[in-house]
């Protein structure tokens, strides 16, 4: 006993020091820990406020088609095969699907065409805040039984307005919800889909629609909305972590061979909300984190250099996410395209790309990635960084500067209004170095012309609200894209103003062009997209600065990591540890 007391003063510090230096406990077998920069805010499958919400809902719910990140193309998920398309006349496309007969809800009921029809109707439920989804899927006008197999409840035809080739894929990109769980009385069936889609906002409220909407929202709030996805949410500590557990029995387990999009290898997925990049990098190096997606360029270079010693693997690919500045066109000072074009020349897109992306990233003229060569308008040149040209454009737009110390002013458009002053507020998500550097560069350039810019870094949730309210002059954010679908209605159509269209932009001509692009066939798609890019550059409600690369660093022992340009850049459900056999 005496020996213990004699050794205690030595053992205690040694134990403490040993404890301090010890690596954190490794993840349990079958568990993968992934970094998220911020909370998903909502797990509403029809209203996904950010990329993390999309990732989370993809684990809980399934669409007809999902992205196969290994092949970098859409693949059938709830659908048995990719859909077949058939034009009808010169303005309608029929898209035929067959659901997998094995697809089941958790209660064992099969997933049927009626569930797809219900989800489409629910998208247009006026009491739900689904304006973005309505703009995105408004081209689907009806769900009809397959005339070749009228008795098969798993087969159906989607009747689409327009004949765009990407409709084949776009029609499969919404999560399917259970009619039995949300509308057991089938009250929505009395509404034809087109009638719901065309229902004016001024129409009197319908109690049946309101009831279903309420039931849906209650289920979302309680996290009790049934889904066909392989995981269930077991823990959500806001702004801290989300845990998804693999369902013990999932309908796709019986499929042989198992398609890549229906893999669900990890038993448990921990998403750790770590807003700070340095903290995330430290966690990764200490192996308290397994996957770190969207790594900033300087950190990526350091982690890449430390790779072999730190047992890390780094990968990159060109992405379809574009850094974008947007103007609030509802503000009188920013209502005219000439002013917006002038201000667009104060963003040093090329300098920012070189500085922040370490040479990666792609300069662009619009929202179409230069990687999509057929559709990219290479006759345009990217908006140059030209403060002197901007000043000349401002003068042409009617702005004057009475003295060197005075702000830019121009007479009001109406007689009883005060003169307009060119001072701006710029919002961006707080804590994002890329956005902050962009904001500081714009502010510094504007300051040289005497334009005051107030920077308002805003927390992610508050930023979404502020953008919806239109409480900004300029914003800087990332717009996500993909190489499959070119539908800009959710972000630029006048129907989506106040929802996804934060800029408030929308003219009859731009609306017509956006609709035409969305509905265009293979022959007309490329010229229409080129025309759209030219219009976007001329009107400048948005200024696409450059396309970002995907950068990902992960534990080198992790398998199944296929880095893709499509967000989130990897498939979490395909990951596994070599020691743990895939279920």
């Amino acid at each position, binding site marked *: 006993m005496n020996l213990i007391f004699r050794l205690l003063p030595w053992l205690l510090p040694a134990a403490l020091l040993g404890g301090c230096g010890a690596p954190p406990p490794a993840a349990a077998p079958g568990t993968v820990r992934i970094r998220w920069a911020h909370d998903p805010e909502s797990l509403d499958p029809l209203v996904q406020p950010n990329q993390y919400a999309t990732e989370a809902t993809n684990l809980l719910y399934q669409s007809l088609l999902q992205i196969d990140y290994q092949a970098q193309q859409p693949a059938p998920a709830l659908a048995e095969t990719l859909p077949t398309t058939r034009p009808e006349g010169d303005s309608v496309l029929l898209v035929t699907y067959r659901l997998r007969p094995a697809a089941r809800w958790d209660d064992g009921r099969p997933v049927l065409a009626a569930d797809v029809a219900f989800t489409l109707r629910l998208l247009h439920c006026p009491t739900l805040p689904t304006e973005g989804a309505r703009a995105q899927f408004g081209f689907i006008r009806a769900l009809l039984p397959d005339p070749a197999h009228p008795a098969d409840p798993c087969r159906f035809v989607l009747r689409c307005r327009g004949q765009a080739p990407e409709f084949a894929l776009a029609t499969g990109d919404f999560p399917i919800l259970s009619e039995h769980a949300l509308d057991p009385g089938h009250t929505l069936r009395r509404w034809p889909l087109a009638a719901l889609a065309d229902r004016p906002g001024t129409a009197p409220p319908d109690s049946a629609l309101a009831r279903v909407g309420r039931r849906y929202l209650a289920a979302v709030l309680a996290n009790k909305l049934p889904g066909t996805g392989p995981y269930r949410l077991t823990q959500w500590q806001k702004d801290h972590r989300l845990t998804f557990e693999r369902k013990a029995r999932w309908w796709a387990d019986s499929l042989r061979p198992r398609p890549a999009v229906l893999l669900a290898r990890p038993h448990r997925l921990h998403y750790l909300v770590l807003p700070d990049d340095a903290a995330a990098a430290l966690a990764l190096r200490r192996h308290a984190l397994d996957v770190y997606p969207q790594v900033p360029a*300087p950190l990526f270079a350091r982690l890449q250099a430390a790779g072999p010693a730190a047992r890390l693997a780094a990968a990159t690919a060109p992405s379809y996410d574009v850094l974008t500045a947007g103007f609030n066109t509802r503000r009188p000072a920013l209502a005219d395209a000439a002013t917006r074009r002038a201000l667009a020349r104060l963003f040093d897109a090329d300098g920012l790309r070189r500085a922040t992306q370490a040479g990666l990233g792609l300069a662009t003229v619009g929202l179409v990635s230069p990687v999509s060569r057929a559709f990219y308008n290479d006759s345009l040149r990217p908006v140059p960084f030209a403060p002197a040209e901007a000043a000349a454009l401002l003068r042409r737009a009617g702005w004057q500067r009475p003295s060197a110390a005075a702000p830019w002013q121009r007479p009001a458009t109406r007689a009883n209004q005060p003169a307009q002053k060119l001072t701006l507020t710029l919002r961006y998500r707080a804590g994002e170095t890329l956005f902050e*550097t962009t904001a*500081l560069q714009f*502010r510094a350039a504007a*300051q040289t012309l005497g334009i005051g810019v107030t*920077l308002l*870094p805003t927390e992610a949730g508050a930023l979404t609200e502020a953008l919806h309210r239109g409480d900004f002059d300029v914003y800087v954010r990332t717009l996500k894209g993909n190489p499959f679908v070119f539908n800009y209605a959710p972000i630029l159509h006048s129907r989506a103003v106040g929802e996804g269209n934060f800029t408030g932009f929308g003219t009859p001509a731009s609306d017509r062009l956006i609709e035409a692009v969305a509905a265009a066939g293979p022959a007309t798609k490329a010229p229409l997209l080129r025309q759209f890019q030219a219009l976007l550059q001329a009107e400048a409600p948005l200024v696409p600065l450059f396309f970002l690369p995907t950068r990902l660093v992960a534990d080198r022992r992790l398998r199944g990591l296929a880095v893709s340009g499509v967000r989130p850049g990897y498939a979490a459900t395909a990951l596994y540890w070599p020691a743990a056999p895939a279920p």
Partner: protein
Amino acid sequence: MAQLIRPTAGCALAWGWFSVLIISALAAPWLPLPYPPGTPDLLHLAAPPSAAAAHWLGTDGQGLDVLTQLLFGARTALLLTLPVAAGATLLGAAIGATAGFWGNRGLRVPLPAALLGLAAAMWAAAVPWLLTGPVVLAAGLACWPRWYRRCPVPLDSLLTGTGTLLDAVPRLVLVTAAAGLGASGRALPLLLLFTTWPETARLVRAQMWRVRVQPFVEAAQAAGLPPLRVWLRHCLPHALIPLKSVFPLSVAGLLGLESTLSFLGIGLPPEVPSWGRMLNAAHSDLGAWWVFVPPFLALASTTLALAYIANKSKHSFNN
């Protein structure tokens, strides 16, 4: 007394550093700096000190020149903390000296005036008229000669209560919460002022308790001098002596708080240079020592200098 007259080397160093800081902070806009504040140099992101690029102390991860940020950060720190510390010291001294001299029963005001004051406070706090009305009515009735009297104002209890209330929540938490509720960068000085005065007030109140029972004060009161004159001429000069050492510590505390808030990204707008923000930039790029060392040294030296000055003032006061 000898220490007051003969400055030590440490004292000279502390005052010298503080003077250099004040001069460079005030002169920062007119110094021939190669890069203006808040302007990123996109060609040199996280670049080490280099004479060729005229970034004498390097740049941070956003391409901001460290030297420029350091000098303008000093300007921000001093222009924010000095006025707030002065304001908080004045406010705290006035409240503490009043409460310490008159206590809970020394100051008596007419009852109608006290009731009207209470009603005004209730109205300002948006208390319903159903409750404020009777107080106004009572104030009217108290004017009647039969019920007219003077009642004591519990100044001492009010001060200690308010101070305890403000101290119950740590200052950092209070300011962070206010920023979360939408308090802008412009509101930060007011917020700091509002949360800093109780410390000074408590100190001056305690000193006033010691002073007011001294024979020379009692003699002045016995001579029939009005209480306000006794307070102002005879007590206050003695009660305020400890402020000489408290003021530098107050500035140091505010400097630390402002840096902490900036480090957390709260309070000051992002385009305003700040030492705390520089330390934050360093933590996102741990290999860039040149981003961390200058603001750390500046902050540490300033805090040490202020603590040294405060310590010396305390010794001179004690001697």
